[in-house]
């Protein structure tokens, strides 16, 4: 397709196409197929594992949110049915623990006496704050790369949950001979081009789970991927439940109509 875009006159595509092809010249650095893991939310009846969602929020909050935004999520989502289902009091407490930029005060000031931006505790109505004020700031802090927003990352990547699981756990391989890890990047064969800007985010014990679950890398990755799956598709459980009812209705309706069809046509053919 790269060639076609060029032939269609998009010079921009030409530039990007050349960049991609030169970096791939020495070695085939196409990404590996994602690891084969399974999740509770798969299949027509799959639901989110409530414990994994709550633990996953903790991993997101303590690890991912240092660099990644999730701007489509609001704190009130945390106590809604089909999600982590924290109690309302718990969700309020989780929100209050997060500081977000305050509105201007009655003197029109947005910074305090020392010149620092005024902050306030988040409420249930607030969306998750972004770690950086703008894209330039995010790039400046991350070696020129932009950490993607995580609200829909599972739906926005080929391979979905397996892809994201493989990325966050895929740093432990040995760098193959002939492959040069770019300065400031990390080797991750599950990422296209194998050079990823994200440092390995998880190790054993990165978080301490309050429910006593042992925080292995695998457990943390599994939990945070479950959380991100819910973040991408918060109405999944409602959708599947609703769909089951619709299917039962339609199959019964089809049965009734088939009987009517047979009766009407009995003597016609």
């Amino acid at each position, binding site marked *: *397709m*790269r*060639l*076609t*875009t060029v*032939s*269609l*006159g*998009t010079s*921009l*595509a030409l530039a*990007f*196409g050349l960049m*991609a092809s030169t970096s791939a010249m020495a070695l085939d650095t196409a990404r590996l197929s994602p690891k084969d893991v399974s999740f509770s939310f798969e299949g*027509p009846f799959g639901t989110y594992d409530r414990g994994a969602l709550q633990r996953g929020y903790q991993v997101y909050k303590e690890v991912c949110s240092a660099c990644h935004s999730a701007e*489509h999520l609001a704190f009130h*989502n945390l106590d809604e049915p089909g999600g982590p289902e924290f109690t309302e009091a718990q969700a309020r407490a989780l929100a209050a623990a997060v500081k977000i930029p305050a509105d201007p005060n009655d003197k029109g000031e947005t910074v305090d006496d020392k010149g620092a931006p005024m902050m306030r505790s988040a409420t249930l109505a607030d969306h998750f704050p972004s770690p950086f004020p703008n894209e330039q700031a995010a790039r400046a802090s991350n070696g020129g790369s932009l950490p*993607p927003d995580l*609200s*829909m990352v599972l*739906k*926005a*990547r*080929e391979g*979905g949950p397996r892809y994201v699981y493989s990325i966050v756990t895929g740093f432990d391989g040995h760098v193959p001979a002939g492959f040069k890890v770019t300065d400031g990047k990390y080797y991750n064969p599950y990422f296209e081009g194998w050079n990823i800007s994200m440092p390995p985010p998880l190790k054993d014990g990165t978080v301490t789970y309050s429910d006593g679950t042992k925080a292995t890398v695998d457990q943390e990755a599994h939990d945070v991927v479950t959380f991100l799956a819910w973040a*991408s598709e*918060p*109405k999944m459980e*409602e*959708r*599947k439940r*609703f*769909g*089951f009812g*619709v*299917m039962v209705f*339609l*199959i019964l*309706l*089809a049965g009734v*109509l*088939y009987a*009517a*069809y047979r009766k*009407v*046509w009995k003597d*016609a*053919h």
Partner: protein
Amino acid sequence: MSGPSTYKPNSGFERWIDTRLPLPRLLHDTIRTFPTPRNLNIWYTFGGILTFCLGVQIVTGVVLAMHYVANAGMAFDSVESIMRDVNYGWLIRYMHSNGASMFFLAVYIHMFRGLYYGSYKAPRELIWIIGVLIYLLMMATAFFGYVLPWGQMSFWGATVITSLFTAIPVVGHSIATWLWGDFAIGDATLNRFFSLHYLLPFIIAAVVGLHIWALHVPGNNNPLGIDVKSPQDTVPFHPYYTVKDAFYLTLFVILFAMFVFFAPDFFGNPDNYQPANPLVTPPDIVPEWYLLPYYAMLRSIPNKLMGVIVMGGALVTLVFIPWLDTSRVRSCRFRPLMKQFFWAFAVACVLLGFCGSQSVDAARFGIPLVWVARVASFYYYAFFWLILPIVGLVETPKKIPASIAQSVLGDTAAAPAE
């Protein structure tokens, strides 16, 4: 069939209405008593299914438009807000996005059925041509609609398709600028696409009215491709075909619901869950599946203008089919040679679709797909411009039954499966 009306008003009130506005008469004649060949098979239920699809798209689309914001800075987030914050917004939006695919699935079956049974042949040429017009309007509407969520594939798909106009010599770039409303795709483009996406479905509805009106003059073709000769050949549309259409429509809706509720992103592209970014070109720009065969034709021609002409010509060709087919027999059921070319044509279309879905330099079994697409494109043209006229002249058709009634009710050994 159009003819003397059999409508008899049941009450004074109906008579009063009928003498002033003959709407009860119209409904009676078109839906109730309309004489319909008694041998229509499952493939003839797709007309009703398509009407249903159009209705679903309009109803869900009107609701989506209540919440959607046609602004390059807000469109993506407004769609996501529909998915998260609007009551049952996820249902409405998934019905609309999957509904487009189901609509095209049904229209392709409907068109292949028309080709197979010769439904475009005299006296039904205008039904076919109006149908081609509906198909073109559907493609335009679907393209505009795909741009609206303003994701990466929306933006870059729109870039590729609108820049096709720059292939036109001399005035091409001016036309593209005029279409965009700007010097690049942006807010002005999104707004006009939204406006047109809301307008075109109602034009489609009007043209569907013409399609059905034209159908009610000669009446339905049928799998035997022979004319209705006596009242024994037909049954009244209601209840025979209302109940049959309703049953098969329900099966179709079950398939539809499986996608909406259990695989809503099956037809989607992950890139479209990333907001449009004019500075980052996705590695593969792929249109929705229903446009892939034409996209493959476009890409298989190295010259841009020629590619556009080949693609456009493939669509325009459809209009001429009624006069390209020289056979006296309509149905492929009695055309042993044509039947084989027909299925080869279906395979060519699927192959083209597959080639369109792969990256342009891909190969299978050592064969570059661009050459597969070239051969399939050649066959597409040859099928209509060479095979259809020639086979009609040289082929010896099988023996055709004397009447529909004899075929269905008479000697059962000779009767084709209903």
